[in-house]
């Protein structure tokens, strides 16, 4: 039995690559373990927790393109989440009396967020490392402050309320379980495309840029273009997550989009293993699901959370499931051949 499982695993690995098999595996495990709980008990609490974990996996996958693949430290990722959320919120609520279909606004929100990503990218392209982090952090805050202060447009801190629920063939998707499934599908889709992107020509260019920008340029890689592409595609994913978030919540407030969202998303990438798609999933389970699971320990929750972070940084700085390449970068002292 175990032999057969091993054989099956190595066969699958050979055919689809280790990463893909792991991603599918992890998703299946989540599905198998969690779905029955939700299906049979219909516990709103768990639907919420897992739904949120899913949203953070999507955000993690998006930011991972920018930070993990292209190596650009972005601390203002929440801005794109906010842009996606407010795009749907404003175009499908009583705020302006506009009620566009969710399925129409979803791509629009993604597109607007991607555009914002490219617009942010243009001025910050010449910056590297810490400077880039500071400017992006500022950008995230600017968006939140704008949402707070453009009262006529966003209703300020009162937020946008009464946001429409998505409708599919006349059927209103209004319960948590609907969003659970929607998020689950989007996680799979984003994980798939992100994985393809990483192993494409574009992914190669990102690796070269991460390693040495000048040399990448000499190899014929248009570093400007590929960095913008990373910002744009990361932002696009953030926009998708934002639109789903606002449809699910039904109301959004500027405070939903504070700095801690960016930090949480970045932390889950680092804990999971930077640049690794299975890592993002595991990181979200550790940082988003676990604190809710530990809720019964109330005050000790944050203590455990902090302890986990510290232990991780000492024992496994490369994260739970590091990408082979990133592992090399973070454990310089014992280099070993890359085989994937």
């Amino acid at each position, binding site marked *: 039995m175990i032999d057969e499982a091993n054989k099956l695993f190595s066969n699958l690995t050979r055919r689809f690559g280790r990463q893909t098999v792991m991603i599918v595996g992890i998703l299946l495990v989540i599905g198998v373990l969690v779905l029955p709980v939700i299906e049979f008990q219909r516990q709103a609490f768990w639907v919420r927790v897992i739904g949120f974990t899913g949203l953070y996996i999507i955000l993690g996958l998006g930011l991972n393109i920018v930070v993990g693949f292209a190596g650009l430290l972005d601390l203002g990722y929440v801005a794109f989440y906010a842009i996606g959320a407010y795009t749907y919120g404003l175009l499908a609520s009583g705020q302006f009396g506009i009620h566009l279909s969710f399925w129409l606004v979803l791509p629009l929100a993604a597109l607007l967020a991607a555009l914002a990503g490219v617009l942010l990218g243009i001025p910050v392209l010449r910056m590297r490392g810490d400077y880039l982090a500071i400017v992006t952090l500022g950008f995230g805050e600017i968006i939140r402050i704008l949402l707070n202060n453009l009262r006529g447009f966003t209703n300020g801190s009162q937020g946008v309320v009464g946001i429409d629920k998505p409708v599919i063939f006349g059927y209103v998707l209004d319960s948590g379980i609907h969003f659970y499934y929607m998020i689950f599908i989007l996680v799979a889709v984003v994980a798939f495309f992100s994985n393809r992107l990483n192993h494409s*020509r574009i992914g*190669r*260019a990102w*690796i*070269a840029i991460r*390693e*040495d920008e*000048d*040399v990448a*340029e*000499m*190899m*014929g*890689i*248009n*570093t400007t273009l590929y960095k913008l592409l990373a910002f744009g595609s990361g932002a696009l994913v953030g926009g998708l997550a934002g639109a789903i978030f606002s449809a699910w919540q039904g109301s959004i407030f500027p405070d939903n989009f504070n700095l801690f969202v960016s930090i949480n998303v970045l932390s889950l990438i680092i804990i999971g293993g930077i640049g690794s798609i299975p890592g993002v999933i595991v990181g979200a389970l550790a940082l988003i699901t676990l604190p809710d699971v530990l809720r019964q320990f109330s005050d000790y929750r944050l203590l455990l959370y902090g302890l986990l972070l510290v232990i991780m940084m000492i024992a496994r700085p490369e994260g739970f499931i590091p990408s082979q*390449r990133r592992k*090399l*970068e973070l454990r310089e002292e014992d*280099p*070993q*051949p*890359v*085989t994937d």
Partner: protein
Amino acid sequence: MALLEVNDIHTYYGNIHALKGVSLSVEAGEIVSLIGANGAGKTTTLRTISGLLRPRQGSIKFKGEDLASFPAHDLVYKGISMVPEGRGVFSRLTVQENLEMGAYSRKDNIASDLERIFGIFPRLKERRKQVAGTLSGGEQQMLATGRALMSRPSLLLMDEPSMGLAPILVEGIFDTIQEINQEGTTILLVEQNALMALQVASRGYVLQTGEVVLEDTAENLRKNQMVQNAYLGIQ
């Protein structure tokens, strides 16, 4: 018409006038050496030709075409490839991945080029799966050279290929430079090791504080009193 024609280029780092009107030309099939002391502007000249720095004045023509309007990443498509100073290999990629990265500009099959590079540098074949950062200095130099050749350049710019290498390896590197040249690649070589550089080159330029002070055939330069005193250590 020369393959590469550099005409009176002035390059600045901020307010520092690094190149004060450098002119040089490289004919197809040649090895041309650029020698000079530290800070003479050798690397700056190469970086200006490769588009990583922009001259404020002067022109650079390759195959008769002015390169001024092309960004650095376009030059490899024109047929110029560079082996950067200090090798600049992608240290966390394997040897083979580094070579593949060198062929990024190409969309056709690169299998025969890989074999060609492994033919020139059998050492790289043995280590094709090894991470480049774990190679020795000499091997990294081979890799950087091989990577630059993967784009099938008509002009190869080499920046200090002998830097930091054991003397025994230096000879090997210069042998390969000649070999690559005989296979049809034109080479512009920047070197501090003037002795070796003038042995493989057909012509040479001597650079001093951002200006060309001397240009001649390599043979004449080797016999030149000033060159002997200043760069060859012959009194």
